């Protein structure tokens, strides 16, 4: 086998060589070329092996940038980031008047991996650098749904990359085969492309593994390929299970999913009324979701062998009548979680009031909430609030909050 890895050998040299994601490429080019950027940084996100890093490297060549890169192999604590990235983003090089001068471009790869004690303060440092930077900053991540990446949303423009379509992967493999003088059966390339599930990098690696030595490839050679399981997010999971034509297909999607089953159950119960118009089907689906919920409770922390029943009930609930599927607007994240998010301020205020009452009356917060607050509300609504508020040490806003409370 040749020494070079084909993924490196055939890495795109210019932006037009990058396959797929035409719209994302156009959006990225527009951002890079723009003199007045709305946001100083851009975050390219999408599954692995679809050309995010390749596009950045090719763009740097096309537009004459020098890349200063930090990736997952570096420790990315606040101090390390400040040590490497801050000088690159705020200072100017001495070759400013040289004809070959290249402007710096900071590239932070796999930012969704900047977590834990090892990378403490990493995200905060990145946000600070973006705010103070004089050069373009590009970030790449596989999954941006993580709560810890939320601060980046304010300072970064998000560009989503999709999986590469199978025909495009086949075409890329054909090109490599021509370059490497490999005689490959079309069906074999088709099999490799399908197995890669939109991941061009893994498809090229598979091709090299199977055909690198012998310069010919037949369909039989691809039998050794093991199937790749890709993680599926909540939106794709919901869409997949509702679209599934059979119980088994829905179950396969759930088995590949990375979602939290508690969140999935909430989303299922939100979306089922839109999915089933028939009341009998709707009732059956809710019954199955409730059974799944019972088993989720029984799993607790250790009985993970029961997870298969949860998946089965959810898959069955999604395929009560596959023929009746009609496209509808999916509700995610779950309404309950959204409501909890919107009412967090109110709940915090109520919690503080209950704590003050509890402290003064020597009772628990829950007792204060259930037994005492209704009386305090009644007293305060009769404009006798001042002495009581002083005694309980309540702020003016808290008094107003109690007066306007509908119910607890």
């Amino acid at each position: 086998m040749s020494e070079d890895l084909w993924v490196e050998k055939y890495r795109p040299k210019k932006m037009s060589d990058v396959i797929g994601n035409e719209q994302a490429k156009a959006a990225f080019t527009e951002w890079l070329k723009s003199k007045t950027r709305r946001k100083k940084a851009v975050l390219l996100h999408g599954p692995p092996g679809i050309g995010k890093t390749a596009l950045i490297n090719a763009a740097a060549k096309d537009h004459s940038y020098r890349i200063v890169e930090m990736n997952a192999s570096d420790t990315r604590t606040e101090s390390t980031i400040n040590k490497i990235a801050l000088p690159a983003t705020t200072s100017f090089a001495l070759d400013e008047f040289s004809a070959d001068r290249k402007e710096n471009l900071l590239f932070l790869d796999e930012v969704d991996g900047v977590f834990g004690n090892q990378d403490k303060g990493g995200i905060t440092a990145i946000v600070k650098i973006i705010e103070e930077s004089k050069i373009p900053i590009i970030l790449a991540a596989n999954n941006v749904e993580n709560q810890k990446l939320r601060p980046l949303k304010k300072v970064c423009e998000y560009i989503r990359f999709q999986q590469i379509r199978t025909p495009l992967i086949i075409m890329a493999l054909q090109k490599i085969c021509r370059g490497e003088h490999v005689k490959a059966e079309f069906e074999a390339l088709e099999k490799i492309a399908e197995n890669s599930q939109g991941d061009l990098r893994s498809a090229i690696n598979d091709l090299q593994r199977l055909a690198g030595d012998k310069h010919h490839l037949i369909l039989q050679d691809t039998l050794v390929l093991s199937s790749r399981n890709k993680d599926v997010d909540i939106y794709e999971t919901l869409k997949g299970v509702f679209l599934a034509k059979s119980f088994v297909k829905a179950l396969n999607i759930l088995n590949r999913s990375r979602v939290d089953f508690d969140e999935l159950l909430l989303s299922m119960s939100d979306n089922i009324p839109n999915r089933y118009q028939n009341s009998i089907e709707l009732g059956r689906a809710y019954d199955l979701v409730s059974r799944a919920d019972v088993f989720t409770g029984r799993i607790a922390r250790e009985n993970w062998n029961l997870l298969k029943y949860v998946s089965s009930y959810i898959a069955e609930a999604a395929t009560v009548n596959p023929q009746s599927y009609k496209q509808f607007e999916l509700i995610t994240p779950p309404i309950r979680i959204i409501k909890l998010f919107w009412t967090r301020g109110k709940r915090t205020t109520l919690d503080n009031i209950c704590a003050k009452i509890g402290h003064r009356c020597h009772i628990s917060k829950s007792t204060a909430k259930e037994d005492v607050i209704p009386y305090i509300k009644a007293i305060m609504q009769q404009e006798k609030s001042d002495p009581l508020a002083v005694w309980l040490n309540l702020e003016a806003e808290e008094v107003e909050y109690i007066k306007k409370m509908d119910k607890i």
Partner: protein
Amino acid sequence: MVVLNKKGFKLPYIDREKFILLMRLGCDRNQSSFYIKNYNNINRLVDTISGILDGEKVTFLQNCLTCGKDFACSDCKYCDLCTTRDLPFQCICPQCLKDGTSIDENAENNDL
């Protein structure tokens, strides 16, 4: 089933909330028609458009990167596996894939 053109499509009257939602999801308005400006939330956008059209299945024609022709996802034998089925992204039409014409070759032919 409703086939839309990503460069411009018309929708029936929509209320203010739906209009704002469309704009947030990446749609924009150009005189009398809508077009897709941002593809980050394309799945949700298509679902929302489908909701506006009373649950009609919404599909977009695909554009072949090699020959430039438009074609439907249903013509492609890989569409069942495709995560971006019926969404407005470029692809390779079955004919070009069968012929084995690469994008580079086609570009060279066009230059000549």
